[in-house]
């Protein structure tokens, strides 16, 4: 099981500090939510972990091994699966083939990948759409496919970037159940960003709150939502009228 450690990670874009000395730990087998207002640096942190960006300073470790600055495919090789906030299905390929491309990462044969992909689609409730072109799925199904494809690579850490965005409440509950099941049955460690607080509260063991690229709070869901600092960054400081 994977333990993810971020240590004093900094990243600037043309002088703009997107992430500033971010440090937190995701313990093996837990679900951690990264929350914060728009522009707080959530997606930047995801991209730093996933190898899209290289941190200016600081270190990112998985299984005690540094993955900072590796290319995205090497990060996947190290055991990180990710989804994209703006879904990126292989639109012209079938749903099954999408999952198979992911499964081929660890499977040696195409036949093996097909078996693995079928099992993953089953788990995400996409088995009935296996032969459809991925581009023709509904948004909810495309978000599920993102998770399925990432999961097919057999990650020890799953990065989920707003997989609930745009889903209806019933679909959110389904996704929550699926993710809980993954944690329980496969021992996958999950780091997710999410705006849907209903999902965050239902899922996370820990919450990390970002504001202006800095970690301003972390703790259990119930503790974090009562934190005055967190309320301040979402609602603004209390000012006497």
């Amino acid at each position, binding site marked *: 099981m994977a333990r993810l450690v971020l240590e004093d990670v900094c990243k600037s874009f043309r002088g703009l500090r997107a992430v500033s000395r971010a440090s937190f730990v995701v313990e093996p087998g837990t679900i951690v939510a990264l929350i914060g207002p728009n522009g707080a640096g959530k997606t930047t942190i995801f991209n730093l972990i996933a190898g899209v960006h290289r941190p200016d300073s600081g270190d990112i470790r998985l299984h005690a091994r540094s993955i900072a600055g590796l290319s*995205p*495919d090497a990060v996947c090789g190290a055991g990180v699966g990710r989804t*994209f906030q703006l879904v990126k*299905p292989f*639109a*012209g*390929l079938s749903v099954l083939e999408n999952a198979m*491309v992911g499964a*081929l990462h660890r499977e040696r044969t195409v036949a093996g990948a097909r078996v693995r992909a079928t099992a993953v689609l089953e788990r995400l409730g996409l088995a009935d759409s296996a032969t459809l072109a991925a581009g023709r799925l509904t948004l909810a199904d495309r978000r599920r496919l993102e998770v399925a494809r990432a999961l097919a690579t057999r990650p020890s850490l799953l990065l989920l970037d707003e997989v609930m965005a745009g889903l209806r409440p019933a679909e959110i509950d389904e996704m929550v159940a699926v993710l809980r099941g993954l944690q329980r049955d496969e021992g996958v460690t999950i780091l997710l960003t999410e705006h849907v607080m209903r999902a965050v509260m239902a899922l996370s063991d820990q919450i990390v709150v970002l504001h202006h690229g800095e970690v301003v709070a972390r703790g259990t869901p119930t503790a974090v939502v009562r934190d005055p600092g967190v309320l301040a960054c979402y609602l603004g400081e209390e000012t006497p009228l």
Partner: protein
Amino acid sequence: MTRDRQRWAVGAATGMVLLVLPFIASNYVLSVATLVLYLAYVGQAWNVMMGFAGQLSLGHSLYVGVGAYAAAGLFARYGVGPWAGVWLAIALCAAMAGVIGFLAFRLRISGVHLSLLTIAFAELVRIAFDHIDGLGGPGGLFLRVAARDQIDLRAFRGPPAMYYYAMLGLAAGALAVCAALLRRRAGYYWRAIREDEVAAQAVGIDTFWWKMRAVVLSAAMTAVAGVFYAFYYNSLFPEQIFSFSRSIEIILGPVIGGLGTLMGPIVGAAALVLLGDGTTELLARAGLDVPGGKHVVYGVLLLVVTIYFPNGIWPPLARVLGFRPKRL
């Protein structure tokens, strides 16, 4: 008839006709058929790069030309036959494709800019060959034309039927290779890269190396076509063989037939040549000499296909013939 039977029937009938064609057809028909197979083959090769991996080359005449000059040069100057020359052709083209691919993919050049780079290299090499006097320069390189009725396999000289069967073998071989590749890891990875490169990387695909493989394989396959070209036509001019319009001719087949499909390049090449040369022939018989008439046909065909069959003519045709057009 079940669809499966119908499929086999169509396939077997086509195969039989192709095999016995030299015994029943005139030399003119045979030369047209050879051209169809030639374009089907180079189209298949180009399709590996664009149709499968999504990397648009508009300079594939480069590999036909270098392949042709490599084998013809060895033969004309040193008497080395094409069976050895083809390996030099493959090695040279693979190396050039490797350089172009390395430059492009390391510098993250893609899309339109990659296409421009491929055109630039083809032009560069064309100009270079204009100045290689040992290979005839702009005046051209010529191979001795041997007696047409004797088969000399070692020097690859012989009657039209020999060239026809060689090209039939190449086209069938390319089809088999591509079909096998699509079923393997390469096929899945290339198509993933074509659909979304960022997502492909995120599932662990080293997109740089897989794109390199596609480009090098495509070039190596095209090199073989160049060797055939040299020994079939016996004359090479840089101006012609490296020209941009030759590159376009290579891509028209797969585009019209269906990008990324296995049968597309074959069906497209057949449609192009039969309609193009057919019209020219008909006009000639009617006593009309229309220069460039073939290109008008190409243009109209391309227009019709783009408007009515944006995925090429093979997918709808396949349904009619009872083939299940596999989504690739």
